[in-house]
């Protein structure tokens, strides 16, 4: 595979060496996927895996204006990773990652019109991470029930408090059981 040609075709992509993947701006995701799918050299006809990832905001050290390291808040974002393989040319993978702007209103384009295999996986990511895929034909919750409101796979999700009886609690489970007990007492009082 001649990835240089691929890189030259789409200068808006960014190569991430640590994860060997291309970071793609979400405006051009469909364009790039269509190229990968139809180009006679790549022939990436199988979109194998679509995975959501949640990156919380974190502190990072950067060099400030005066040359001294400054700690800066790196805003969190949600990310979708696509793994493309080629069935007809038996090659791959090509990994694309697409990031949302922030975690508050995450919207990404849906790749389902090009690859049917993304249909349920995008629904799952919508269900568990809350990323809205514009252009998806049938975007509903898939694993949780329809009335559910949270996005449980996000890193800041707080699971419901249903600890009634825990015979062998320790560590964080013990802490949650205690919290449950305090809550009960508060409610009773």
């Amino acid at each position, binding site marked *: 595979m001649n990835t240089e040609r691929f890189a030259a075709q789409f200068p808006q992509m960014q190569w991430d060496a640590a994860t060997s993947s291309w970071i793609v701006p979400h405006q051009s995701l469909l364009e790039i996927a269509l190229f990968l799918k139809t180009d006679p050299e790549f022939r990436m006809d199988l979109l194998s895996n679509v995975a959501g990832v949640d990156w919380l905001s974190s502190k990072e050290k950067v060099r400030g204006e005066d040359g001294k390291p400054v700690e800066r808040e790196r805003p969190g974002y949600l990310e979708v990773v696509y793994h493309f393989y080629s069935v007809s040319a038996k090659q791959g993978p090509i990994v694309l990652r697409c990031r949302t702007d922030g975690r508050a209103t995450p919207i990404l384009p849906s790749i389902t019109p090009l690859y049917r295999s993304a249909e349920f996986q995008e629904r799952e990511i919508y269900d568990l991470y809350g990323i809205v895929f514009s252009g998806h034909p049938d975007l509903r919750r898939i694993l949780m*029930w329809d*009335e559910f409101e949270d996005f449980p796979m996000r890193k800041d999700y707080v699971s*419901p408090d*249903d600890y*009634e009886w825990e015979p062998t*609690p320790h560590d964080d*489970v*013990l802490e949650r059981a*205690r919290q449950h007990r305090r809550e009960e007492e508060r409610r009773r009082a």
Partner: protein
Amino acid sequence: MDDWLKSELQRAGVFVTTLEWVYNQSRRSSVWPLQFGLACCAIEMIATAAARYDLARFGAEVFRPTPRQADLMIVAGTVTKKMAPQVVRIYNQMPEPKYVIAMGACAISGGPFKQGYNVLKGIDRFIPVDVHIPGCPPRPEALLNALMFLQRKIDRQTLGAAQPLRWYDPMDRAEFPVPACGAHDLVPTHTRAIWKPEASPRPLT
């Protein structure tokens, strides 16, 4: 009638028995389970019904697809919160007398998945369970064992007025409220009438 008189009569060729014994004997020998599997344990349940372990030796091989014809519900596998209302609904549809075996760690307490957000921490929060059989999954022999335990339990049932059985009480419909799927969790998270946890062996405060 005591045992001595019974054996004396038997010697004379007169066999006596109690109505209770006949009742219990016929009930215990035809416990028809519901054909109802949830997860991994269901496969072991099928293996128990298959030729090598042969549930038919205990009169329980007739897996009924409809709850209306079943006596026994083997809750075989993880009950998720999305599935819990359905399980309660199926249980409500079963006619009395009905029994429940909680098979495997997940059905008893949520098991290995109990820390998950979508896993019910034990089916006994919503329906009464007669036999718990731990294991992940229990071996088919263990399920047979649970069935024998249940049969012994049926043997001890009495028709007399001293301890009336639940299903002879006209006021007790044995129908339990079906939980609703709420915004964050099931509503309610358990049925107060059934779920009576013991005190935790360890102080939490």
